[in-house]
């Protein structure tokens, strides 16, 4: 696939393990695909242990246990332990719903190193509205329990049109929790979130103000809380280097064992995902056609081929290009050089939708 400048494939940096699609929350901005996998088809404990061992040998450094809600898996402690034995750094992304101190203690003893807890708003009613569940108070109550353990805590604030005007208060709430890291992440319009795009997409003016708020917080919290922010989709002049470039840094395994280059890759037509039930992870990384599909630059438009930015953004996000233009090889429309760039201006100018669609 690498027609020009055939670069050797280095080890993936991270493995995202979607242990299950089951989840107690029904977030409006859920990034999981529209069609969820049922519990009956999920990988077994032995499957995941084998995958973690293969990942360690492949040189993967970071493991992200996610879902759905990873706590739903009864074998989570065993999985964390196996991952650490395989040499992986273990992070868990959780809603926290249902997590009790004794289970957290067992997870930390097994080797859990980093926990990521997301919040939907600083206003309880608004937060529960977005999550489609009464989760806010449970999350708040969990923080002091988490802080008893030698575990890094990232608080993730998910922002969008409905809460962006309250960002200073939202950050103040997070600051009070004393996390090690704070992530301020704009909703990305993939999976279920795309259904609610018109409801969630902020105005230009909101985005503009939020950038200043985030920058001020970064300076203020320096040395105390490490702050990272994810810029909103659709507002830049140049695209993001999505997942660090297709098939360059990340492998995602979904609950039934399919290996994907990113969360959203299943939206792209005619991609076939190899399965860890049948293939070794190293083979998948090197050979799987889905991972090869947008490696290198052979697929790129003449515009991207000639552009020096291709070394930084790798042509932008393929899923976004497909979702907005119907062509997965198109220039990411976020790019100012895309013939479809005006699409985003149109979307930004639209009257926002007011009715939410929760996931079932």
């Amino acid at each position, binding site marked *: 696939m690498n027609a020009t400048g055939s670069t050797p494939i280095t080890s993936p*940096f991270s493995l995202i393990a979607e242990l299950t699609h089951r989840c107690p929350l029904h977030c409006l901005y859920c990034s999981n695909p529209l069609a969820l996998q049922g519990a009956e088809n999920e990988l077994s404990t032995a499957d995941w242990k084998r995958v973690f061992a293969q990942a360690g040998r492949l040189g993967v*450094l*970071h493991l992200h246990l996610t879902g759905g809600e990873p706590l739903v898996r009864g074998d989570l402690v065993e999985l964390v332990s196996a991952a650490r034995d395989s*040499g992986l*750094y273990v*992070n868990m992304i959780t809603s926290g719903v249902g997590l009790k101190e004794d289970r957290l203690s067992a997870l930390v003893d097994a080797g859990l*190193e*980093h926990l990521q807890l997301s919040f939907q708003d600083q206003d309880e009613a608004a937060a529960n509205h977005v999550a489609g569940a009464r989760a806010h108070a449970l999350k708040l109550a969990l923080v002091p329990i988490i802080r008893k*353990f*030698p*575990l*890094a*805590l*990232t608080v993730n604030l998910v922002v969008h049109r409905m809460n962006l005007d309250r960002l200073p208060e939202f950050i103040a709430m997070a600051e009070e929790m004393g996390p*090690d*890291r704070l992530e301020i992440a704009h909703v990305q319009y993939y999976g279920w979130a795309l259904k609610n795009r018109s409801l969630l997409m902020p105005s230009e003016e909101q985005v503009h103000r939020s950038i200043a708020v985030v920058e001020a917080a970064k300076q203020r919290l*320096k*040395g*105390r*809380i*490490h702050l*990272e922010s994810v810029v909103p989709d659709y507002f830049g002049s140049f695209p993001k280097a999505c997942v660090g470039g297709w098939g360059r840094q990340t492998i995602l395994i979904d609950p039934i064992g399919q290996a994907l280059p990113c969360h959203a890759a299943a939206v792209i037509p005619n991609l076939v995902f190899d399965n860890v039930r049948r293939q070794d992870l190293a083979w998948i990384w090197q050979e799987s056609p889905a991972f090869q599909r947008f490696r290198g630059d052979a697929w790129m438009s003449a515009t991207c081929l000639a552009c020096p930015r291709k070394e930084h953004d790798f042509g932008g996000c393929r899923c976004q290009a497909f979702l907005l233009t119907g062509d997965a090889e198109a220039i990411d429309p976020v790019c100012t050089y895309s013939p479809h760039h005006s699409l985003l201006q149109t979307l930004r100018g639209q009257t926002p939708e007011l009715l939410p669609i929760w996931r079932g």
Partner: protein
Amino acid sequence: MDMNSIPALAPGCRLHPTQDVLLVPEGTLQLGGPTRDVLARVDGAHSVTAIVDQLLLEYEGADATEVRTDVLELLAGLEQRGVVRAQR
């Protein structure tokens, strides 16, 4: 961070057993030069002074003032990044 501080790695941060990287939440920090030797001695029990003394034993002939300055600078930078904490 000063010479009397007792530095410790922040929760969720550890040296990779074989590669020259510090594993931190959501990332890695590349460890150039003698950084790994310094961080290997950051254990929440020894002061910066004690760490420098250990390093001077190891690096025979190194300039003590220079090592002190470099170690302090390195640890202060990592403290700003949130991956090392100074305790007293």
